[in-house]
């Protein structure tokens, strides 16, 4: 995983290569769209396309923070459970105080705090990230189920629900949020020193440390951002569903990882883009939406997502190996 031959400023130097990778993926998304337009009557309608975009943006919020983690060569398996606990606590706050603003801040705060704990485990306690966040998954799962005690929360203020289900100038609100975070994420990763340092850590952690990058602090930041984005996603989920149960968002971990990997971010760190993850989220949403329109039983969704994860990694390894 610590391949010395990789340039340590992977992000900017390989941007053109990354662009080609993203272009292939956009082409794939386009082909899926074309196929679904031919195969189904209902795909190419404004309602369905807006629906796909909204679903893809939900997935993107979780997957964007995860992208940064994967860029450092780590993994965050706790994001789904983090969405659940953030949504449930934020929901309670909104019910108790009646203030959506406070609820939004709570959701992002809880998510970020969980992410920071992950970061502490990975940096200070030096537990491998996949197993630390996997332990965290079950801790959060347990706490959320205990906290909710089998109850469901319903009925949030209409203004709050707009975040998830409202429209502005004909487009769903989450799509605007998507554009904002896509821009922030891309600029952060490609155009800031911190972003470049994240690529450097993923490409070669030893070289990164030797060249004076504060690796532990950057990793802490990345895991906190990943958690905070899960918190943000939980808010939009809550606003969209208008209810919260202990299992809200829990099944999103695998799709989020799939979106990152389909988007071309390498599991071995140092290669990939936030925009690629957006395209990955779009492709996965299109596939699942298409299965739905073709009346494939929803039971097939985890199976297909699992196959896609493995295919995406396999494809990534094949193309990178040829490039190297």
């Amino acid at each position: 995983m610590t391949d010395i031959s990789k340039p340590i400023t992977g992000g900017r130097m390989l941007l053109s290569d990354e662009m080609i990778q993203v272009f292939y993926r956009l082409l794939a998304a386009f082909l899926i769209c074309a196929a679904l337009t031919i195969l189904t009557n209902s795909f190419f309608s404004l309602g369905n396309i807006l629906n796909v975009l909204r679903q893809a943006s939900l997935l993107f919020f979780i997957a964007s923070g995860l992208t940064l983690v994967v860029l450092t060569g780590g993994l965050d398996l706790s994001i789904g459970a983090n969405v659940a606990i953030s949504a449930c606590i934020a929901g309670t706050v909104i019910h108790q105080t009646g203030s959506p603003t406070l609820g939004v801040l709570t959701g992002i705060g809880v998510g970020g705090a969980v992410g920071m704990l992950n970061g502490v485990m990975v940096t200070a306690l030096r537990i491998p990230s996949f197993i630390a966040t996997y332990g965290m998954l079950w801790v959060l799962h347990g706490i959320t189920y205990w906290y909710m005690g089998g109850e469901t929360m319903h009925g949030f203020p209409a203004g709050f629900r707009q975040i998830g289900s409202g429209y502005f100038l004909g487009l769903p609100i989450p799509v605007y949020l998507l554009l904002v975070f896509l821009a922030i994420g891309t600029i952060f990763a490609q155009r800031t020193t911190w972003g470049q340092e994240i690529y450097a850590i993923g490409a070669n952690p030893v070289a990164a440390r030797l060249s004076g990058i504060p690796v532990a602090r950057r990793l802490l930041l990345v895991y906190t951002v990943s958690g905070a984005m899960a918190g943000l996603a939980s808010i939009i989920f809550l606003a969209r569903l208008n209810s919260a149960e202990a299992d809200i968002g829990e099944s999103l971990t695998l799709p989020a990882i799939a979106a990152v990997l389909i988007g071309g971010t390498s599991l071995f760190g140092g290669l990939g883009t936030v925009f690629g993850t957006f395209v990955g989220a779009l492709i996965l949403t299109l596939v699942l939406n298409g299965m739905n329109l073709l009346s494939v039983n929803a039971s097939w969704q985890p199976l297909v997502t699992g196959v896609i994860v493995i295919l995406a990694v396999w494809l990534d390894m094949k193309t990178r190996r040829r490039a190297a």
Partner: protein
Amino acid sequence: MREQAMVLNTNPLQRIPGVAVMLVLLCVVFSLMTPGFLTVPNISNVLVQSTILLMLALPMTLIIMTEGLDLSMGAVLTLTSLIVAIVALATGSLLLGLLAALAVGIVFGTINGWLVAVVGIPPFVATLGTLGMAQGLSLIVSDGQSVVGMPAAVRGVYSGTLGGVPLPIVLGLGSYLAFHGLLYHTRFGTYIFALGGNREALKFAGISARRLLILVYALGGAMVGLAGLLMTARMNSGHPTAGLGLEFDAIAAVAVGGTSFERGNGWLLGTLLGVVTVGVLRNGLNLLALPSSIQVASVGLLVIAALFVDGLRSRS
């Protein structure tokens, strides 16, 4: 670091304290807090309930020793348990059910091993992918419904006894002894130690690390198939979400038992004690009337604590 690992290998007794102290401590605390804990029926209950976990934790130890991981075990267990139920229901034959479950388990294990060893996908992602596949297949073969109406023989596997000892315990002990023999007294076992600790040496010895890895994961799949039989027998039915998440208890047992995630040295007796520790923890919290959600969270904390200690040990 590697030298230290060797020393630890030759003297596993050095590590007994960790997990054994924890187990004794938990037993003492629970005996003091609930009168029902330290009774023969309850202890026997803990041991019987731990057998399914043991069947996952034994191969998980070997997999973790190869610096791997199998996150798909719980989902594949669910699938094999359903297969036992469906085949037993259709044919009335327990043996056919077991064979089908073993076959499905081995197929999944082989796919895992192939993805890890040949394709080169990091184990936690490869097995996360097959987790999704097994979960999806479970929903598809069961149509999301429980499979009920088992022949009487199925129930007998869990409730029967052999010479006065409950059958699950016989199967669990048998599995432990088989794995102990395999790991410590065969060449295969020596190679597994080498896979985690010294892959170069394997290459020089002319052993195919790939084939060995596939075998380790396939063995895991076979054990999951066997555990599927016990699972179905225990519930007297097949359920499409029954075993989900059980891989976490297995990983917890292995981690608590002192097998290292980074240095390729495993300790099977530690895993056995780890399985009992997880079983005692869940049972005790249960007797204290704490909900299962708290049990799950406690096991999560247990894993993080065990890994923290493992990290400290590898640094010192």
